[in-house]
């Protein structure tokens, strides 16, 4: 084929131009470390990379959520740990004060320490979460949630439960609202309570109470009335449900409930049996304080005091169990967060590997390609120089 002089040059220039543009492209890949500079390099790969980017960013956010949640739950757990310790101390002191040999003064001294413990428990309930909000206030946590005074416990928080996502499709609940931890505690044995009538004149004391047959308990209000050595069990409509002779220390059973009364009741003395209401832990401690500060000289006063301490310790035990349950709940959530952490980490590694395979340049391949192109360009340039000065005109004249 006939080749004109111009086309010889054009061909050589084209060849060198192609090599140069390839070199420029590879050099940019090596410099940025990215195989794709825009979606045109690999549209499907690029859009996949965009989606994976989003997934990686989401995982990071979940990680942030997990950290915040973990800190709050651990803080709440530590606070409740302290509260548990204080409740144990209150129980110990109350048992001590129930000792019959203590004088009123000694009991009042114990009551003083109980007051300190109560204040400490209120302070724990008002723990701050470190960011200017309060840990146990639910979502109305801008102000301290709890106050306890003469009129009882007041709660300024709400019952809203927050959740946060710590992994895809995994949401974990935040710290329980304070109402559920400190206020909604069942008294008695959890199902029913036995309380002496305040007007009792005798010296009957409650020794033990138990639910022996839960299916027979109907949740109604009953009264056990003592009269002349006998007892009668009346329901809310004053119908007699059970009766018998009273023997101190012998169990009285009705409707699946068993109570043991000791001592000498006066005629008309009554013990009320009713479904257990809820009571806040602060009132529980306050009840014990009130019981210890009341003078107990006469047998009747002593019996009343002993019954009050019995009731208080029962309620306190429920409170301690309740707090432990809440802590177990926190523990379970912390466990979930830990598992989510592991899952997120594994997921993150997978996603980042995928991203790298899509986007990153294979240095070995790119560098060998670079060498190839460089060799080709050098060959093209040198061969061009050799050829271009061959001309017949050089030999004329």
């Amino acid at each position, binding site marked *: 084929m006939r080749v004109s002089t111009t086309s010889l040059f054009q061909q050589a220039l084209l060849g060198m131009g192609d090599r140069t543009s390839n070199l420029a492209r590879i050099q940019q890949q090596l410099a940025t470390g990215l195989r794709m500079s825009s979606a045109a390099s690999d549209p499907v790969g690029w859009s996949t990379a965009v989606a994976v980017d989003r997934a990686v960013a989401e995982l990071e956010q979940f990680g942030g959520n997990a950290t915040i949640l973990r800190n709050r739950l651990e803080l709440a757990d530590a606070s409740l740990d302290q509260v548990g310790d204080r409740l144990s101390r209150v129980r110990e002191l109350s048992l001590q004060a129930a000792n019959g040999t203590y004088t009123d003064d000694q009991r009042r001294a114990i009551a003083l320490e109980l007051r300190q413990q109560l204040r400490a428990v209120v302070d724990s309930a008002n723990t701050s979460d470190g960011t200017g909000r309060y840990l146990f206030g639910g979502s109305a946590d801008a102000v301290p949630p709890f106050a306890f005074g003469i009129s009882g416990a007041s709660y300024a928080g709400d019952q*809203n439960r927050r959740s946060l996502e710590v992994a895809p499709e995994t949401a974990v609940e935040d710290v329980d609202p304070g109402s559920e931890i400190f206020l909604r505690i069942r008294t008695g044995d959890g199902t029913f309570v036995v309380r002496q009538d305040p007007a009792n004149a005798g010296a009957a004391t409650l020794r033990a109470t138990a639910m022996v047959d839960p299916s027979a308990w109907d949740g109604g209000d009953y009264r056990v009335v003592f009269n002349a050595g006998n007892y009668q069990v009346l329901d809310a409509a004053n119908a007699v449900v059970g009766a018998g002779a009273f023997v101190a220390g012998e169990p009285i059973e009705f409707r699946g409930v068993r109570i043991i009364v000791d001592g000498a009741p006066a005629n008309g003395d009554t013990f009320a049996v009713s479904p257990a209401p809820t009571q806040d832990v602060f009132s529980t401690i306050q009840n014990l304080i009130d019981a210890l500060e009341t003078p107990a000289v006469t047998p009747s006063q002593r019996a009343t005091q002993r019954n009050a301490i019995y009731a208080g310790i029962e309620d306190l035990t429920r409170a301690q169990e309740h707090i432990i349950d809440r802590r177990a709940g926190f523990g379970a959530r912390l466990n979930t967060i830990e598992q989510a952490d592991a899952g997120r980490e594994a997921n993150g590694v997978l996603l980042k590997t995928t991203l790298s395979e899509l986007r990153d340049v294979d240095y070995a391949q790119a560098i060998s390609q670079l060498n190839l192109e460089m060799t080709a360009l050098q060959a093209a340039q040198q061969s061009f120089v050799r050829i271009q000065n061959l*001309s017949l005109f050089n030999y004329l004249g």
Partner: protein
Amino acid sequence: MPDILSTGSSALLAFQRMMATTSNNVANANTPGYTRQRALLGSRGGQDIGPGYVGSGVQINRIERLADDFVISRLRDSASELGRLSQLSSLSSRIDRMVSDPASGIAKPLSDFLDAAQSLSSQPASSAARSDFLGKAQVLAARFRTLDGQLDGMVNESTRRAETLVDGINTDLREVARLNGEVVRALALGSNAPPNDLLDQRDAIVQRLSQRIGVTVAAQDGGALNVFTNTGQALVVGRTASTLAATPDPYDPGRREMSLQTANGPILLGSSGLGGELGGLLEFARDVLDPAQERLGRLATAFAQTVNAQHREGVDYYGDLGGELFTVTPPQVSARNSNTGTAGFTASVSNIGALNGAAIELTFNGASWSAVRQGTGQALGMTGTGTVADPFVVEGVSLVLNGAAAASDAFLLRPTAAAGGGMQVQITDPNRLAAANPVRSSAAVANTGAASIGTPSVLDATNPSLRAPVDIVFVDANNYTIDGTGPFAYTQGAPISYNGWQVALQGPAVAGDTFSIGPTPPRSSDNGNARLLAAVGSGGLLDGGTVSMSSDVAGISAQIGSSARRADLARDAQSTIDTQIQQERESISGVNLDEEAANLMRFQQAYQAAAQVIAVADTVFQSLLAAMRR
């Protein structure tokens, strides 16, 4: 008798002209578009002197132009394709880089915004988290605006380029017409004397024309070249050149459409079918630029509407229901410049799932309105009557008609193309961000039953009593009243709806148990709405609810990237073909310096020999004279 002198001088003249032709070739070896010329020799007739014929020398029959018209026409077609693809490829690559680059694309700011919503959900009461969320919202809005502005800039640039091209084309057309006249005149003087240089010039201009607009040619008998567009419109006929004009688009004075000015008025050149750079420009605007703007605008519209709807379902730090967070430009309706009626439309997006974004033409035939897709003419279903109570609805856009239209009035509806350019964040106070649920539930502490109440969710944020306090009281273990109404039967876990919210109760209840639903107060750290805002990007929304916003962002990048890639590959292929054809042409018409050098030597030798012949003739004559002298 033909004598030596005349033979010799004919030879001298002939070889002189041959050397001139060769030196012309050498001089023009690097001239682009030059076709090498060759002088054809022929012997002059012989004279009969009796015993035979004696030749009378040599003459130049013709100076031939070595051009293959078929190769030239293939080169023209290739130039048209290459011009079109080069424009398409370079402009598409610019948009592709704009959208792909993390510093100018949408994917990163959208992802950052969703991340900021997630952060807000983890610390709703923190002013830092709120400010950060607002900041990311503003970055996202600014990015939409900037990107849309750049695309608008490309629209303007395309218009300017088209106008410049049209000017250049018109100049070329006039030049071709003039050259046609000159070639015809030159050929009329003698058909053996083709005006080679004029032909080269004309071919070069037609080649440039083809690169610019894509032409086909038909040679006329007199030597003139008639030039037509790829679709058959005449551009140059003989000595008359038509004028191309870039007239304002009837729906948008900022855009141009191509028309040919003829004696009978302007003829519209459709944007499809044109080749060359002009065709590439129009194809780019129609197939890459407009769809890109429309899709990005659709994303902006869907995003703003969805986020706003979710935001209105929450309460802010002041305890008020959330307001509008983002605004975008509503769908634009422009009237055709030939309309005679007084009608106008107010448009809004009513159904994101049905939103497409491509331009729609609305025409009034005197009695009713119809909607077709602009460009393809495909009929689209449109319901409604155009009143406020019953607006026209077409592809997710609601239109309310104002004024009266005259028959054959037409309007162009662009549902989403302008949306991104007007994206603004309406909230400036971070405490106005609605991160909390509007209602909260609680169970009375004195309840003796073991039932618990869940978190309420919002069904209808526009219900006026949404935030009125409501009590659910159990009259017995199996029945409850709501706000005094009822009683209703209690099913554990079944949702209870009232006043626009919904809540579920679990567990056994006892008579007297009370549960309350009330408004979320100010300064709440509830995160319910913030969590829903964070999930906005992954819910199915577009295309009938099958595509989420995060997927759509990736889809837009992929679509634009594919267009750019296709154009690049096609251009590379065409470039290779073009190079091959060029080499073919060069092989036929190009100057080879070695060949010319050899020819030069040959003719030089021949010239010297002919000069010797003259010298011999002179010697012969001198001898004769000397013989005759006395």
